């Protein structure tokens, strides 16, 4: 998606070097429709520059900082040297993500989607999530719930969720904890199994959380949680251990959660 307006001073933009002159380089801005900026030779790199071509090539994709925008003169001043490595990597990733999101929009609504509808949907996602990519990612993790505050039709929401679920690879975090469970009853193993099933959530764990409970060495069982972020993962881990402990405690047993694996005393 290309924006129709102008970039803001201080904003990082992605562009392709179009022309190289002795006084600087012209950059076509990939994110803005028909916009071109100039990066003066003094803003291409730090230190004395003898030849601009020693630092940049035509056709090269660069990340630049917007220094000044003069809409009446149709001029955008850029700086390449003011962008550090970290900013460059982050911006490129963001730009790639938006290109992906652009693709997903086509997958969700078809190639013949008119510009007006496209812009309306895109603007809703931008307003709610800050970027189209974040909107799709959120839809992949939380499903329809993620889009409940977005002013889109039921069909549009379904299309976004479906496409997101099929295409977005969600950045999960994984946390591990342990729960010691023991039960003195005559059918103690069944109660332990019931407790472990409860730890796994009995099928009632939210879609974005994956829980796996496995045996380590009695009475110790490992709980592994995969979730979109650490807060969610940590909460799910403790809730899982609590559910297991509650089951065994109801049958005269004991349950105890701990983060690190116990030292094997065997």
């Amino acid at each position: 998606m290309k924006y129709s307006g102008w970039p803001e001073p201080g904003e990082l933009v992605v562009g392709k070097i179009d022309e190289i002159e002795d006084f600087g380089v012209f950059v076509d801005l990939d994110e803005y429709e028909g916009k071109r900026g100039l990066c003066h030779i003094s803003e291409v790199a730090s230190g004395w520059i003898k030849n601009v071509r020693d630092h940049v090539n035509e056709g090269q994709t660069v990340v630049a900082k917007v220094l000044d925008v003069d809409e009446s003169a149709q001029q955008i001043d850029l700086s390449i040297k003011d962008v550090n490595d970290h900013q460059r990597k982050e911006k490129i990733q963001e730009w790639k993500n938006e290109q992906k999101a652009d693709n997903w929009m086509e997958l969700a609504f078809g190639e013949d989607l008119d510009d007006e509808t496209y812009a309306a949907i895109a603007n809703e996602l931008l307003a709610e999530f800050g970027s189209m990519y974040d909107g799709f990612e959120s839809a992949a993790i939380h499903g329809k719930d993620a889009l409940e505050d977005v002013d889109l039709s039921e069909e549009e929401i379904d299309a976004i969720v479906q496409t997101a679920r099929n295409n977005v690879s969600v950045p999960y975090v994984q946390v591990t904890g342990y729960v010691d469970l023991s039960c003195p009853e005559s059918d103690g193993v069944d109660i332990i199994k019931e407790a472990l099933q409860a730890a796994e959530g009995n099928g009632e764990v939210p879609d974005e959380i994956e829980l796996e409970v496995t045996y380590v060495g009695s009475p110790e069982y490992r709980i592994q949680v995969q979730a979109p972020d650490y807060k969610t993962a940590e909460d799910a881990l403790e809730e899982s251990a609590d559910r297991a402990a509650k089951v065994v405690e109801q049958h005269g047993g004991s349950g105890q959660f701990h983060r690190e694996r116990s030292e094997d005393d065997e």
Partner: protein
Amino acid sequence: MTSNKQPEVNIGLVGHVDHGKTTLVQALSGEWTDQHSEEMKRGISIRLGYADATFRRCPEAEEPEAFTVDEHCDDHDVDTDHLRTVSFVDAPGHETLMATMLSGAAIMDGAVLVISATEPVPQAQTEEHLSALDIIGIDNIVIAQNKVDLVDEERAMQNYEQIQEFVEGTVAEGAPVVPISAGQEANIDLLIEAVQSEIPTPERDPDEDARMMVARSFDINRPGTTWDDLMGGVLGGSLVGGQLDADDEIELRPGREVEEGGKTEWQPVTTTVRSLQSGGDFVDTVTPGGLLGVGTGLDPAITKGDALAGQVAGPPGSLPPVHETFTMDVDLLERIVGDDGGEVDEISTGEPLMLTIGTATTVGSVTSARDDECEVALKRPVCAASGSKIAINRRVGARWRLIGVGTLR
């Protein structure tokens, strides 16, 4: 070499450390019984090792060559006939593991005493193990003179005479001495013949209450097992009476230690039999003889690491009483068995004793000692019937030494 019928008799392999007991089990059963990591590392048996062997007979061959453990006789190209399946209890021979050997003796119907031809007779544990068999009353004995391939004929004969001299006046007097090489699997046929004639299958009463002596207990689950595949704890041991069926309810005594209202007490553990394994197969019913595995509904945390070894299992309400203290009649040996062989002093009040009753080993403190009886307070209670035999061990230097036998009042 695998067994295909339920074992009907338990035979102990006893003798000094490194005289070849475990190698002999392997020659007879095809199974290596040292499976504990520490055992593998140190090359000695630490816990009781179990393996089943099926004795067979070639219908075309003359005795003793006819006796074999192979299902097919290659010499005559015929299948061999099944005689019986036996269970071997490979007891540790190392001196510090004497208690384990004694607990194994409780489930033996007979024993093969393994004596190496390469060392003078008797070695410390050879003597101690024989005394233990004497105490527990195991008199069906075969002596395997092992490692004869490593000595010349003269040395083998000398060793044979030492054996005869050593067993004179003991339960092993008159027992056949079979020269073998377990490592080379030589004369195994002669050994089978001797076992067949000297260690008969005992008469059993199928109508009495089931009674199991628990010698081992395990957690068989492997790391990574998911909840739906989790298995209950397993008991290993021997049925000494009655019959046990899958789905039977059983009680284990003395059970487990429970803290209630600030004081600890022992409570029986009850559970159901979920599976039975005997002779390497899952079965619906087991009768005495052989070693069995009982899959239970217990939390594996209760059974892991031999935690229930020494317990007695049977139908609820049928088991003997649990004793935290008891009085026993004492019959002391004249001399301490083993290297130093000093005289056995009378038991005195206050001294600690290590006592083995059935498969249970516990330490007790003597609260009263007079003439031929003494009263003992146990650190860990035992389940035992009146008249049960008790192996009595005393601390001599750095280890426990067998000094006599007790009979529970």
